[in-house]
């Protein structure tokens, strides 16, 4: 089969690989019809995530058709059109039994601090991902579900991570009616978090980024008030000024490990790999939220230490909440919102690129060329 293969930092190619096999009775093999590149895939692509091995296939956002199932699989069958959450999870451990699907204890031998994630290094379990023609899906009775007939693949693939994560991020902010919500990052997760904040009754939604085309999208798609931090000497002071010097009630970090805005932080983290991530957006969230406010962290960071302003978080009495999103918990409600026309996930898709050109897709997304917000990958063009 054809599959994207990592070759080292900033390098990947499409290779012929063995089709994945059933390795456990509850496995399924999915023929991928649509995949996406996530902003967090760029951390792998840039060599930031420890134990990212040459030869691995990335991709934790994908949908497809069931091609083969193991002997114990009951809930899906060959021919089913399915969507697969980015979490690999067993459904039965201490954490899964409490709804913490992203924290499953039975699927990642390499680390206890994170569950299993498709195509996201051995630190997240060593599973190949879905930027390929076929992918192995463990616990096929637990994670995947049939895509509703009324939903197209472009919308479904965005429910496997980006939309679910943005919606989850807004929930972790504990938004109440009339709250001022500031979202750092106008990438896919930030756009969805901003849009979701309104669903939860926000009174004002502000989005911060340095890319004008993404801020334009935040204004149009998420009805947000937008500011380019590159224009301001100090974005935190600006945010204080526009919130009567109290700060926002809720701040959401939708940027993560490669945040810009402080050259030293960015270079030490993203280029020299001396930190788990560049916490510029997180520090701005801590600084710009009001005392007693909530900070929700949706940006992905590596497992090493990062220079976070923890003292200010303590002194301000903040609540910091974060997790990888337990995707399937979000689906029933998100299906309703999509059916009711409150959300149209694929409105943020800017590029649809064949698998054979995935190296270009990563470069375009990484360098933010061509107005790129969300690139989808088409492994099996019709």
């Amino acid at each position, binding site marked *: 089969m054809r599959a994207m293969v990592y*070759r*080292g*930092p900033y*390098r*990947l*190619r499409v*290779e012929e690989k063995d089709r994945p096999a059933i*390795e*456990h009775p*509850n496995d399924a093999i999915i023929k991928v019809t649509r995949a996406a590149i996530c902003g967090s895939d760029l951390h792998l692509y840039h*060599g930031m995530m420890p*134990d990212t*091995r*040459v*030869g*691995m296939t990335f991709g934790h956002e994908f949908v497809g058709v069931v091609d083969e199932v193991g002997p*114990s699989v*009951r*809930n899906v069958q060959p021919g089913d059109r399915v969507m697969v959450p980015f979490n690999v*999870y067993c*459904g039965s451990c201490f954490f*899964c*039994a*409490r*709804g913490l699907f992203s924290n499953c204890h*039975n699927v990642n*031998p*390499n680390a*206890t601090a994170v569950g299993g994630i498709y195509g996201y290094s*051995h630190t997240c379990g*060593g599973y190949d991902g879905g930027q390929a023609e076929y992918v192995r899906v463990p*616990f096929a*009775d637990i994670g995947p579900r049939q895509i509703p007939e009324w939903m197209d693949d472009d919308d479904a693939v965005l429910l496997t991570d980006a939309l679910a994560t943005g*919606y989850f991020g807004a929930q972790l902010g504990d*938004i109440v009616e009339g709250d001022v919500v500031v979202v750092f990052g106008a990438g896919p997760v930030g756009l969805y978090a901003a849009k*979701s904040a309104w*669903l*939860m*009754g926000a*009174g004002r939604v502000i989005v911060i980024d*340095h890319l*004008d085309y993404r801020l334009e999208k935040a204004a149009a798609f998420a009805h947000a008030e937008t500011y380019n931090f*590159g*224009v301001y000497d100090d974005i935190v002071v600006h945010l204080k000024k526009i919130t009567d010097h109290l700060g926002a009630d809720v701040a959401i970090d939708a940027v993560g490990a490669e945040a*810009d805005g402080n*050259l030293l932080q960015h270079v030490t983290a*993203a280029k020299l*790999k001396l930190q*788990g991530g560049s916490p510029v957006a997180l520090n701005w969230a801590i600084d710009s939220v009001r005392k007693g406010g909530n900070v929700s962290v949706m940006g992905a960071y590596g497992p090493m230490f990062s220079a976070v302003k923890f003292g200010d978080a303590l002194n301000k009495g903040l609540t910091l909440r974060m997790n990888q999103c337990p995707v399937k*918990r*979000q689906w029933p409600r998100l299906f309703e*919102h999509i059916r*009711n026309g*409150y959300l149209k996930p694929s409105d943020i898709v800017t590029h649809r690129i064949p698998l054979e050109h995935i*190296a*270009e897709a990563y*470069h*375009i997304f990484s*360098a*933010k060329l061509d107005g790129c917000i969300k690139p989808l990958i088409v492994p099996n063009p019709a």
Partner: protein
Amino acid sequence: MAYTADKPKLAESSDELRARIPGWGVDLDPKDRPSVPQERFDPTLNGAHWEFPERQPEKWPRERSIEHKFLTPVFGTSCPPKGLSGMIRRYSYRRYSEGRAAHWLLLLAADRVDAVESTFASFLTRHPDNPITETGVLSEFTHHGLPSRLGGKRVDRLHHPLDPVLVAAPWVLAAGVAYLALRRVAGRSTQD
């Protein structure tokens, strides 16, 4: 507004927002949201028909965190450790917990060694690594590279020049080592 007990007034009321923004307030009740509460005990929630999953066969000694009691019943089988990078990875997993910086720094070092090993190995195959096609850099010419980088107030312009340096450095280094090695061999043959 002075620093008083009042919350600053919003520009739009809830009714105005409901009228302007599709779906405003449909998830207004904080208790009625899918991830609230974060922990909700329900062993039947997921449809698992096992108490503990059957174990996947271990086809090679699978490296694992020493913070785990045992090898998890299911695991990924992509890219078994190999070569020098594999030795470093195995040592890191065997010796250090996830709480130690040494664990992660060794894994990052192994990643870099793996990239070098794999690139050299690729030269012995029919598909040697090609930094031009593998970096996707030609999309700079087909997808508005320069205008995209120069437009607006992008702050990442400051560190863009570092990317080609990071990509090219190992290749330049390898070329330099190869050149020195060849020169030494050539020097010896001349002396003979």
